[in-house]
C-alpha cells in the first residue's frame, strides 16, 4: 500500500486548528512558519499537487510519454473510455474483486482477532504470527501463491486430491484466476485487519459483556448487539481503506497473471498501466486514472453516508 494512498487517514482525523488556539503563542510568525514548511510544501507541491493538475491536462491530450508532441483532443479520451469494452471488462473484474476482497478480509480479520482477544500463554507469539503478513511484499506474496496453486505440483492441489477433489488449474484458468487473487490478497491483508480489529475489541470493556450476560443475552446475541456495534468505527475504517486499496489492485495481478489468462484478471489499474507504459497511450491512461479517482471519492462518500446510520461512536 503506497503511502500516498492513505486517503482515509485525512478524512478520519481531527479537524484543523481554529485561530483562537494560537493566541497563546503570541504574535504571528509568518516568516518562520513558511521557512519550516517550505521543504515539505515544495516537495509535495512538485510531486503531489502539480502532477494532479498535469494529469488532468494530460487526460485531454494524446501523449506517448516520449515525444514532446501532445495534441489536444478534448474529451475524446473520456468518450473512448465509455465505449471501450476492455475498460468495461476491467471495471467488472475490479468490482467483482472488490466485492469479494473487502468483506472477505474484514470477516477473516474479525474472526482471527476474536480468537486472539484473550490472554493465554504465548498469546504474543500467536499475535505476531497473525500480524506478520503485513510485512510480506505483494511480489513475495504473488510468488508464494503461484507456487502454492501450481496446477501440477502445488500444495493446494495436493490437499484437494487428498480429500477427493481433482486438481484445479487455478491461476491458469479464466474462471478461477481472479478468485485465487482474492484469496491471495485477503491473506496479505489479514495482518492489517487483525491489528485494527484486535485493538477495537480490546477497547470494548469486559464489563459490558458481563452486564449483557447478566441481562440474559446468549453469546451470539452479545456479539451481535454489543460487540459488533461497538466495533463499527473500526469496521468503517477498514471498509474505506480496503475498498480504496482494492480499487487500486495491481502488483499481484502483474506478478501472477499479467492480467490473464485472456484478460480474466485485468483490473482497472492493470489496464491503466498497460495503456500508459506498454501501449504508450498516456493521455488515455490519465483519463482512466481520473475516472478511477472519481469512483473512489464517490464510493468513499457513499460509505461515509451509510456510516452515519450504522456507526456508533462511544
Amino acid at each position, binding site marked *: 500500500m503506497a503511502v500516498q494512498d492513505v486517503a482515509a487517514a485525512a478524512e478520519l482525523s481531527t479537524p484543523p486548528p481554529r485561530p483562537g488556539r494560537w493566541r497563546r503563542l503570541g504574535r504571528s510568525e509568518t516568516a518562520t512558519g513558511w521557512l519550516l514548511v517550505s521543504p515539505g510544501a515544495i516537495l509535495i507541491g512538485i510531486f503531489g499537487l502539480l502532477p494532479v493538475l498535469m494529469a488532468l491536462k494530460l487526460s485531454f491530450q494524446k501523449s506517448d510519454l516520449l515525444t514532446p508532441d501532445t495534441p489536444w483532443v478534448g474529451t475524446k479520451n473520456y468518450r473512448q473510455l465509455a465505449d471501450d469494452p476492455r475498460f468495461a471488462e476491467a471495471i467488472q473484474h475490479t468490482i467483482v474483486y472488490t466485492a469479494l476482497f473487502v468483506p472477505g478480509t474484514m470477516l477473516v480479520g474479525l474472526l482471527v482477532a476474536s480468537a486472539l482477544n484473550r490472554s493465554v500463554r504465548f498469546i504474543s507469539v500467536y499475535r505476531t504470527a497473525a500480524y506478520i503478513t503485513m510485512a510480506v511484499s505483494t511480489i513475495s506474496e504473488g510468488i508464494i501463491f503461484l507456487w502454492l496453486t501450481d496446477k501440477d505440483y502445488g500444495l493446494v492441489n495436493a490437499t484437494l486430491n487428498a480429500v477427493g477433489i481433482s486438481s484445479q488449474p487455478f491461476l491458469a484458468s479464466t474462471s478461477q484466476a481472479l478468485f485465487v487473487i482474492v484469496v491471495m490478497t485477503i491473506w496479505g491483508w489479514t495482518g492489517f485487519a487483525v491489528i485494527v480489529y484486535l485493538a477495537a475489541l480490546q477497547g470494548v*470493556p469486559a*464489563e*459490558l459483556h*458481563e*452486564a*449483557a*450476560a*447478566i*441481562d*440474559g*443475552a*446468549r453469546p451470539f*446475541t452479545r456479539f451481535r*448487539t*454489543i460487540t459488533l*456495534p*461497538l466495533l463499527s468505527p473500526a469496521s468503517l475504517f477498514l471498509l474505506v481503506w480496503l475498498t480504496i486499496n482494492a480499487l487500486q489492485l495491481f502488483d499481484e495481478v502483474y506478478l501472477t497473471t499479467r492480467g490473464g489468462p485472456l484478460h480474466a484478471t485485468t483490473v482497472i489499474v492493470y489496464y491503466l498501466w498497460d495503456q500508459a507504459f506498454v501501449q504508450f497511450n498516456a493521455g488515455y491512461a490519465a483519463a482512466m486514472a481520473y475516472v478511477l479517482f472519481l469512483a473512489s471519492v464517490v464510493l468513499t462518500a457513499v460509505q461515509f453516508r451509510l456510516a452515519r446510520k450504522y456507526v*456508533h461512536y*462511544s
Partner: protein
Amino acid sequence: MAEVEFRGVSRRFGDVQALHGLDLVVADGEFLILVGPSGCGKSTALRLLAGLDKPTSGEILIAGRPVTGLGPGERDIAMVFQNYALYPHMSVFQNLAYGLRQRRTPRAEVHRRVRETAVLLDIDELLDRKPGQLSGGQRQRVAMGRALVRRPQAFLLDEPLSNLDAKLRTQVRGDLKRLHREVPVTSIYVTHDQVEAMTLGDRICVMSDGEVQQIGSTDDIYNRPANTFVAGFMGSPPMNLVPGEVRGGTIRVAGAALTDFASPDRPVTVGFRPEDLRISGSSQAGAVPARIDFCEPLGSHVLVHALVDSGDPGAEETVTHVIAQAPPGTTYDSGSRVGLGVARGKTFVFDAETGQAAPPTARDRVTTA
C-alpha cells in the same frame, strides 16, 4: 426476592487463595454489605454469586436452589457495576429494556416497566439520551434502573458509589436506603468504604484476606468487634490499638492500670476509640501516660495525636501513635505530657497473638472520667 447462601465457597487463582471457605446466608429482603480492603475477596464473592466466575469449591444457592451450573443470565440476579457498564451505543431506554427484551418480555410490558423504573429513579426525562450525554450521577441511576427493572431475586452492587464525588455520594447513599425501603430486594453490596458499610447495611460482613472476620449489625461490628482487624478497620478515625499486658488481674498499658480483667498474665492488645478518650494531667491514676504530637482542629472537634510508650524499659522502644477526640478549642503544646483516660466500659481487649477479642468478662473498674 430470595435468600442467598454461600456454603464453603472458595476460589483460588494459581497460588493465591482469594476466598477461603465462605459461609454466609443473606436473608430474603436483607441488605448485606461486604466490606474490607482491596484484595479481601469481597468482589470475588460477588462475582461468584453473579456467575461471572466459577468457585474452586463450595456451593452457592439462590432461593434454595444451587446455581453452580447456571450462567449469569440464568440466575435471575442483577448487578450494578462500579463503572456502570452502560451500553454506550444504546439510549437510556434501550439500556433499561435490554434485559427484558432478552427474556422475550412483551413490548407493552417492557414499556410499562421501563417507564415505571425510570420514574422511580427520576430518570424518565433522560430516556432518549445516550450514556455519553449523561452526568456521573445520572449514569449511576441508569445503571441501578437497568438492574431494578428486571425485578431480580437478588441485587448485586459492586462499589457503585466509588466513582461519584463526595457530595453526590452522600446523596445517593440516602437514595439507596430509601429505595431499598420501597423495593426490598435481597441486596449484596460490596464496598471498601466503611462509612457506606455502616450506614447502608442491615448487616455487615467484614472481610480480609479471603476470610470473613465478622458478620453482624453496625452496632455489633462497632461495639463488639471480634478481632483487631475489625476493630481497626471500622470507625474513622480508627480504633487505637496499643500493646499492653494483663498482670495480676489488671490490664496495663504503658505501666498504667486501666481496668480489671480476669485472665492469667499475658500480653494483649488493648483498644479504645478516639471518642472514648479523655485527656487529663499526666499524673492521673488509671490514665495512660502519653506525649502530645500535634492537634488537628476540625471545627466540631479536635483530633489530638499523641504518642504512648508501650515497651518494656530496656527492650527496644515501642511508641504507638494514638488519636483522641477532644472538644473544640482544645490545644496542647507538642511534647507536653498528658494522661489518657478511657471511658467506662470502653476498653477492648484482644489476644496479642491472634488478635481475637478476649471474652468480655471484665469491664468493671471505673477509671477516670
